[in-house]
């Protein structure tokens, strides 16, 4: 009994120490809050909600859109951004034939080894090759881009909150900062080599506006290439590169859910029946 009492007394003492320490931190924090001016941060905008063919549990890829997006990546983004987790063979999922993929890969130069001399060289790509990086290494990438290394785009839409909407919004979000914003937050003015974008968390982005004029890319399917159209197409393409299995995943999910629902109903009914004998009658 004495032992039990002492366990409880020690516990109370320990509890009080932690509680007092936490409340002491609270008091100091409240005083600091009351006396210190908070540092204001210029607000940035939440991404717009776009209507994607692949969103929702019944979503499907729009292969035409993915093909257009590939073209935007190819002609605009690929100048600076790698796509290292995507292989040319994956492009068959976009509706291209094997021969088309072969021709597409062959038009790209990838690093190789000269079979005669063993020296590093460039060779035409094969379907098994991955998209080549525009820069030989990160040092070269940084040197060519004002020290900001262009990130790999393979996983971009998964690596940002609300990723697809964010990418599409960002690409259309370049504009001059408004006079009111600069009056309130002078530090929000873009520094040298930076560009104002209202969707970027600190408003100043090292990437120059990549899509600047309508018709910058000529689509094969005749779709009019507005900046909005190109932005959403390439964002959709990047949603595919980030998770090529997304639609297969959702399509696999339905039979699993329906089976489980059926099995759960059966399990409930057998549980009811088994328990009927011992449940009190109401």
């Amino acid at each position, binding site marked *: 009994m004495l032992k039990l009492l002492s*366990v409880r007394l020690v*516990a109370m003492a320990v509890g009080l120490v*932690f*509680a007092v320490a936490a409340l002491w931190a*609270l008091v100091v924090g409240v005083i600091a809050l009351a006396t210190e001016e908070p540092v204001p941060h210029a607000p940035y905008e939440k991404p717009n909600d776009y209507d994607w063919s692949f969103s929702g*549990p019944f979503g499907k890829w729009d292969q035409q859109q993915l093909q257009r997006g590939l073209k935007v990546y190819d002609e605009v983004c690929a100048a600076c951004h790698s796509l290292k987790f995507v292989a040319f063979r994956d492009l068959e999922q976009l509706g291209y034939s094997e021969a088309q993929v072969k021709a597409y890969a062959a038009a790209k130069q990838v690093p190789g080894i000269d079979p005669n001399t063993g020296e590093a060289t460039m060779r035409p790509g094969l379907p098994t090759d991955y998209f080549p990086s525009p820069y030989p290494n990160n040092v070269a990438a940084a040197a060519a881009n004002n020290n900001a290394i262009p990130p790999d785009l393979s996983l971009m839409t998964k690596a*940002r909150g609300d990723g697809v909407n964010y990418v599409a919004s960002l690409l259309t979000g370049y504009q001059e900062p408004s006079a009111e914003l600069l009056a309130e937050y002078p530090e929000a003015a873009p520094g040298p080599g930076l560009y104002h974008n209202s969707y970027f968390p600190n408003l100043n982005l090292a990437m120059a506006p990549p899509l600047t004029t309508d018709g910058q890319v000529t689509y094969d399917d005749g779709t009019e290439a507005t900046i909005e159209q190109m932005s959403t197409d390439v964002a959709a393409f990047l949603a595919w590169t980030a998770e090529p299995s997304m639609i297969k995943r959702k399509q696999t999910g339905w039979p699993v859910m329906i089976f489980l629902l059926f099995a*759960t109903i059966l399990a*409930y009914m057998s549980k009811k029946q088994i328990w009927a004998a*011992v449940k009190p009658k109401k």
Partner: protein
Amino acid sequence: MSFPWARQYEPKNGLTKFLDEKLPLPRLVYNAVGAGYPVPRNLSYFWNFGVLAGFFLVVQIVTGVVLAMHYAANAQVAFATTEHIMRDVNWGWLMRYAHANGASFFFIVVYLHIFRGLFYSSYKAPREMIWLLGVVIFLLMMATAFMGYVLPWGQMSFWGAKVITGLFGAIPIVGEPIQVWLLGGFAPDNAALNRFFSLHFLLPFVIAGVVILHIWALHIPGSSNPTGVEVKSESDTVPFHPYYTAKDGFGLGIALLAYFALVFFLPNALGHPDNYIEANPLSTPAHIVPEWYFWPFYAILRAFTVDFFFVPAKLMGVLAMFASILLWFFLPWLDKSPVRSGHYRPLFRKFFWFGLIPAMIVLFICGGAPAEEPYVILSQIATAYYFIHFLVILPIVSSVEKPEPLPYSITEAVLGSDKTMVKGENTAPAV
């Protein structure tokens, strides 16, 4: 041990007779989760989560072993092999999403299991050992989950590893050498990744071992029940099979529906986007947050923002975080109320629903939020309450509270009367 009315296993054919003589595995199963285990007849659905926790442990081991066949624990390629699993391995995406969300579901069901234990005081005599082993399992789970999150070698993997191993650096004098020893270097790198992978593979089997002890210890007094009144006669119990196998089957169906809804339709909802960026020691994420199941404890860690006398704030936070879980080990001796179930404890119940549960919700939210106001202040209030609740309120309440009258037996609680009831015997609980 079991109740005298427990059904006895009888081998029926040649094979089971042979087995029963040489290695009585069928008998073991019969007595553990079969008709030979009498269980209180009044268990609510809160008693489903033990079985579910065991189920998700198996899910984690099975998916984890498959993932380990395709993963490489090397800082140069770990991120790429994770993507290789997602893209090139047949059904690799399913294995990885099932494993990542399986961890979340393991924690969800274990938290509900612990919640059940706290409300119904399942930790009280004669079930102290079950509770102690349960806390050990929870600690092992936390270590395993933390190390597993490091393996994809994304930004949160790297920075999480840095922050958590950095906690040991808060220990005076020996802290930094311990941190370097744990990591095998001055920062998380290949050495740390390799040992985390090794331990992440080992610990689930250690957990499985402690789970066996946990169930063994459970089978000595038998399951508790929502009234907290111990089993008195045969009419208080039903055999585990078929009654609770059927009920657990239904519970498992519901759990799987929720689990696969997440795996197939929102597989990244509980993860952090930054972990799809490859680890970069030169770029710190804006907000380093652990996985959601660590948020309450992370909030306690961060609540201590100023030095307390001679104890640095960081050390205080680390001590508080570890203490917040280790104190669970002492619950059986802190709460000395003879009544187990919260249903019959008016004062305990008030502090539980209006104190502990809101405090845990606040800690959960604050742990996932950036270290800004009002989250810091809220987490400090909730942290103070958390310690006061378990270490001060619980012992005092158990002394001063006047419990409500208990039913004579489980049978009486269910049926309204009990034929075995002895006239004149009071309803004081058997402790």
